[in-house]
């Protein structure tokens, strides 16, 4: 019988520092055992528990897209004891990983629709996964609009890729920062405000929001105001987690467990759950 508590062995293949403060780092991991790679199927929005043996585990959204076959990508913000240890990893180190856990963004339902992706800060991880996934079957989807905000220009992650996405003419990519900075040519202002300004209409459109709680809290009403029905607004929630398989009770909100019923919830579902945002 499969034991969901046993982590798979993963090897660090590439490390990239995302910001000047070096608190955000991106890790590409590869499977040590090829057979586990075959069995590992996921969709954008899902997460994994990454283990530093001897320290513990932390959940991270998968930032790579299932269409990127060679590695699993995670971006880790250095905040606690596990993330601190992750930041000490070097290429070739072996770490543990459990997953994929949780549900995913409704990529099948989006087919034939316009997609609005709203992200903030380093929570852009699963949104990157989603964006790559959509772009890899670009013809299945209609207009794609991305709004990505951060406190300042340094705090955007995947800057190289952003530059490429901005060049593409088949997506609308908007960057915004909280306060004006010299030399900044993109938008300035909070994400909800920018959303109001540049969002496409709600007709045949799906909105995906992921970011810090305060951003989500103020962006969801904007989308409602723009006319997005609750069933077509999705967001991803976060809580402290341990088991990741709906047992340990830590991420329980309402009758849901974020680790298996979520992390992706539609606004319609959120309305029936207390204590969310």
């Amino acid at each position, binding site marked *: 019988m499969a034991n969901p508590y046993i982590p798979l062995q993963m090897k660090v293949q590439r490390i990239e520092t995302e910001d000047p403060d070096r608190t955000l780092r991106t890790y590409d991991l590869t499977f040590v055992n090829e057979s586990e790679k075959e069995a590992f199927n996921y969709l954008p929005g899902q997460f994994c528990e990454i283990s530093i043996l001897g*320290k*513990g585990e932390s959940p991270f959204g998968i930032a790579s897209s299932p269409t990127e076959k060679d590695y699993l990508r995670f971006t880790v913000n250095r905040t*606690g*004891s596990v993330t*601190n240890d992750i930041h000490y990893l070097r290429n070739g180190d072996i770490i543990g990983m459990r997953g994929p856990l949780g549900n995913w963004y409704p990529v099948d339902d989006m087919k034939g629709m316009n997609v609005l992706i709203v992200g903030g800060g380093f929570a852009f991880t699963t949104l990157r996964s989603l964006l790559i996934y959509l772009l890899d079957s670009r013809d299945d989807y209609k207009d794609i609009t991305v709004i990505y905000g951060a406190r300042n220009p340094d705090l955007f992650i995947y800057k190289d890729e952003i530059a490429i996405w901005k060049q593409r003419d088949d997506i609308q990519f908007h960057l915004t920062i909280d306060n004006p900075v010299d030399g900044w040519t993109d938008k300035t202002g909070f994400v909800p405000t920018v959303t109001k300004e540049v969002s496409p209409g709600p007709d045949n459109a799906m909105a995906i929001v992921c970011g810090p709680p305060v951003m989500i809290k103020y962006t969801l009403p904007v989308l409602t105001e723009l006319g997005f029905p609750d069933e077509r607004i999705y967001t991803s929630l976060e809580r402290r987690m341990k088991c990741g398989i709906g047992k340990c009770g830590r991420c329980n909100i309402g009758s849901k467990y974020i680790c298996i019923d979520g992390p992706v919830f539609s606004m319609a579902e959120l309305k029936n759950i207390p204590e969310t945002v």
Partner: protein
Amino acid sequence: MKMINPDDLSKAIKELLTEKKIDLFIGWEKGSLPLSATPLFITSEDEAERAVFDITCGNNLSIYFTKDRKQFADKKVGIAVKGCDARSVVLNTLEKQIDRANVVMVGVPCHGVLDKKKVLAKTDGREVLELIDNGDTVTLIGKGYELSIDRSEILSSSCLACIYPDAQECDIFIGDARAEVPNENRLKEIKEFEALSTEERWANTCAEYEKCIRCYACRNVCPSCYCNVCFVDQNDPGWIGNTCEFTDSMIFHVIRNLHVAGRCVECGACERACPMDINLLLLNRKVAMEVKDRFGDIAGLDINGKPAMVDFKEDEKQDFIMG
């Protein structure tokens, strides 16, 4: 043994409320079980009628000053205090957790509070349906039995060693407050334990603390434990393991003891709350004894003092220093 007349307590509370000296009074009322009183937050005269004080009122109500980070910060609060509870309030004052000027302490004459586990041991596990407090004796009544036993047999171990049953610091006292009460059993348990060999003591310690399931009830009910994040919950660095491993549990208890050294008022809340029935207080009382012997301090007795462990004198006994 002079017991309190509950009407006197209610009357005092009502007066405080009507004279607007307090916004709220924290006392006890009869609980849902015969062996448990329950805390009562009184804001009206009707509620004041329900206030009681008896052998079941074990709770050290001062914990409500530090729970949820100063929920009463902007209120004038009256509080019923036994001797140990009063010391907690004093300690809270010394540690700047409360403003003494905003607290009206109402002392109640205490003759000890019961330990439910000891009661059940007396009845061989049979449920107690009624408890009658006759002063020196207590009558326990259950299905098919009636038992009269000495009060001292069911008192919390903290009470058996108590020398300050009545509040030494208070604004109102219901009855006549006793000053220090001599107690020949004060150090009995500690001296008996000390008389054992090192090996025997260690065996006893292991037997007790191996029971610990690390539920932290002892810490959570302790009026002196109010750190925002307890050292055992810190994970960066993670000082000690959080599983029920014995050495980790032992270190947790030893360090917790030291953290409340000179601050523990020996109210016994920890021991009564322990679901695993560990005699936690023995170590606390040993530490309190050392603090008293060496530094002359008793926690929470002197409102103008300083908690022992943040104070020092230059010429202190240092018999434990080598050479």
